[in-house]
């Protein structure tokens, strides 16, 4: 019985680690079950999971090439643009 309990009972650290793993790959059946059991009983880990999902969404979204950063309106300095144009025109790449 103790052995069974040990298998079923995850620590919070292990549970949150499996939550991370689940974001990136499939969990094994036993891991899914362990995580389910733990989450049923642990408010803190449930909060963590929600917040972890949110961070995952944010990071995923801002890593898309279509993402437009909102916090900066910086432009590429003109001299860098001219330099690129000049270099491309003078290079014998074709």
């Amino acid at each position, binding site marked *: 019985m103790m052995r069974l309990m040990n298998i079923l009972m995850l620590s919070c650290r292990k549970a949150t*680690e499996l939550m991370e793993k689940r974001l990136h790959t499939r969990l094994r059946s036993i891991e899914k079950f362990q995580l389910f059991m733990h989450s049923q009983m642990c408010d803190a880990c449930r909060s963590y999971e929600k917040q972890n999902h949110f961070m995952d969404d944010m990071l995923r979204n801002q890593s898309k090439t*279509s993402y437009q950063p909102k916090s*900066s309106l910086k432009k590429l300095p003109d001299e860098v643009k001219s330099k*690129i144009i000049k270099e491309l025109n003078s290079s014998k790449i074709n």
Partner: protein
Amino acid sequence: MQATDNPDKPQLIAQWVNLYSDELYRWAIYKVTDEAVAQDLIQETFLSAFQHADKFQGSSSPKTWLFSILKNKIIDHYRQKVRSFASTNLAHTEPENDPWFDSDHRWKDASKPEPWDVGTENLLDNPEFEATLGNCLRKLPVAWSSCIQLKYLNEKDSDEICQELNITTSNLWQILHRAKLHLRNCLELNWFKP
């Protein structure tokens, strides 16, 4: 649109640089922080684009194509960065004084996650939150934030990332897990429960 053997090549180059470089630059700065590095990456992106102009068949827009080249340049940037860390350094994910978990691996009382009072909707479009998230990412140890960037920019290739970092897949989760714990805490202190 063919950039090679195009008599209007100088115009085309100037046109693409003027049309797309600011947007490319903004994303590059956001992803790598350092403006000088971002400028180099933009330069490399255009150079690479015109070197491989034959591969651009007009099947995507020039903008999409340039962004995909830039993305690969940014991934290379982080690869190099991460390679400069010894694998032992990266794998060091279990600090002696764990700030989050006690010796039984349960949450310490002070770090128990509680629900955030502030909603998380629409934060992706919020410039202040974006800046906060950026700052929190920068506060992470460089090896960890580089792992995060590589993982999210290069989603499909966890195994490849692990090979390059000379770590196992399970170790990558542990690194990401540690990094997220810190990131969560930083967001909480600076945004959700200031």
